[in-house]
């Protein structure tokens, strides 16, 4: 097993290729994330951090460059393989939670396992465990619209953990929460990082939040302008 979880080499992303309004968002990113690291990618809006997250989360392909995720060359994979990699190796946590509406917390957590082809009973068992882990064991059968923001995000984290992914990719996970619930969510991430040695990539515009993480990568205008250790790590 490779020590390097994420390995980006000269990643360039252009939009509207071949058109007059062709736009280069990322100008050649090199980044390595080691197994078990808690990294934050910080940048103001327009810095290209969302595009970078899409590429790390293989929701999008880079125009140029190499990307190895847990030893797999992602750039060469087919669409169907990408779906499989997303399912097995990446756990997404979104700012807007993105839980499936009118579907219970339990079913939401089961979803990645459903696509992984895991049997019904095993799915349910594991989903229960995960929800217990994030302190949501009392809300198994609640639908998202019956949950508060913090509760929704905890369900989302449980869902991200469903297939025991290689990395957790969190995009502004506390962006829509008040500071108190935001704190709670961050505590869960720390716990996952410390106790389960999960590799976590946190994307945020907040310097304050980034200070908690092991390493801060600062992005500006599509280029990495600096790396430092978190102060309160």
């Amino acid at each position, binding site marked *: 097993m490779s020590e390097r979880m994420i390995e980006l080499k000269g990643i360039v992303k252009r939009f509207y290729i071949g058109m007059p309004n062709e736009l280069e968002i990322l100008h050649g990113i090199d980044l390595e994330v080691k197994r078990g690291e808690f990294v934050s990618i910080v940048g103001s809006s327009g810095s290209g951090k969302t595009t970078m997250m899409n590429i790390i989360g293989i929701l999008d392909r880079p125009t140029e460059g190499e990307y190895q995720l847990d030893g797999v060359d992602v750039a060469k994979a087919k669409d169907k393989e990408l779906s499989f990699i997303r399912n097995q190796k990446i756990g997404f946590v979104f700012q807007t939670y993105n839980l499936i*509406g009118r579907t219970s917390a339990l079913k939401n957590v089961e979803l990645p396992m459903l696509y992984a082809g895991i049997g019904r009973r095993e799915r349910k068992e594991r989903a229960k465990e995960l929800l217990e882990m994030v302190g949501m064991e009392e809300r198994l059968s609640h639908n998202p619209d019956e949950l508060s923001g913090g509760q929704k995000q905890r369900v989302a984290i449980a869902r991200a953990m469903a297939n025991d992914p290689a990395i957790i990719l969190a995009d502004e996970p506390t962006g829509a929460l008040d500071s108190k619930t935001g704190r709670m969510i961050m505590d869960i991430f720390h716990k996952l990082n410390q106790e389960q040695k999960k590799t976590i990539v946190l994307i945020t515009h907040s310097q304050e939040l980034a200070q908690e993480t092991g390493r801060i990568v600062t992005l500006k205008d599509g280029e990495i302008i600096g790396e430092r250790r978190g102060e309160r790590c």
Partner: protein
Amino acid sequence: MLILENILLAFHSLRANKMRSLLTMLGIIIGIASVIAIMTLGDSLSKSVTDSMSSMGANNVTVGLQQKSTTTEVTGSGMTFSFGPRMTKMQEKDYVTEEMLSDLKTRYAHSIEGYSLSENIGSGTAQHGAKYAYVNAEGVNDANLKNLDLTLLAGRFLTERDQKEGRKVVLVSDLLVKNMFDGNSMEALEQTVDILFKNRYYTYTIVGVYQYEESSMGFSSTSEEDTETMMYLPLKTAKDQNHNTMGYSQFTILTASGVSASEFCDTVETYMNQKYYSDNNSFEISAMSMESIVKSMTEMLSTVALVIAAIAGISLLVGGIGVMNIMLVSITERTREIGTRKALGATNGSIRLQFIMEAIVLCLIGGALGILLGIGIAAVATKMMGYAVSPSVNGILISVSFSVFIGVFFGYYPANKAAKLHPIEALRYE
């Protein structure tokens, strides 16, 4: 992903939007219901017709003489006009003789069980004292009488001796007894009645009373007193009375069981025409069976039903478009859900399967409700018309497969659209 999971998923999302699902299904329900109702109605109708006509003797082959035609012209509307020699009166040589009958019987001994022969005298008025009743008198042979399957209420049937000697004895209906003997069948027996046929009186002795049965086809418009009932007398008696020594212009073959009446028709026709009527330039033999009449009638009925059902099927098409429309709306609404599913590892194929399955389940539920509704409507309608319901199995099978087809056909485009969504765009969709 498993099909079953997708079916559960489909049920789940349809339940989440009950009203919308129901309204969408309504198109399918109405379409399927009308197709099923019409096909069931058609099936019930043709089954009733078949049953009632079979009870009139599906195994009988009716053989008659008809004018030979020399030229035949078919008009544009499909009508056939025959121009033959001027309608000629039947002469003695034209009639079917006893010899011909026994020859035919010897030739096809295995197929022919007997001949049902009759000689109609016509309508007349029976009188007894001041009371009267209308009758239609017909001379019948033994086989004919058996074939009529009458229910004897009093007295006896016509015997072999009655037939042989041409006795003036008759079987009358209980309706006649009611009109002339106050309904007392026993009193009517051995009574003589005078019957007026064409200005001449004939006197007969009543030997039996049979139960009159209202014809299952059509309605009698006359009151009970004025209803003309059949009066049966020995064949020979009738022939003597008509001074008919020539033979028969028509007879019925009772085929043995296991013989296809409609096929036997051709055999008889060919044999008789070749042997006896090839050099007769006015008349030829024509045979037909109830079976073939019933066959062509049911065929016609089901064709009509099918055509109407096809027209009703157009509403199914409209229903299908409704399904497609609502699926498109649903997919736009759930764009973010689709994006999320893709981020969580759903392949294009599994997204496509999910939405096609949803469309199929929608159509199948609609189809099932439509089948129930259609059978319900048909049951009420057939009951009102007085026929027995026989649900159209074909109709149900066609409807179910058609529902699935509509689901796949009208669900594929929206589902494919959903499957092809770019995960990022879908995730960021507002």
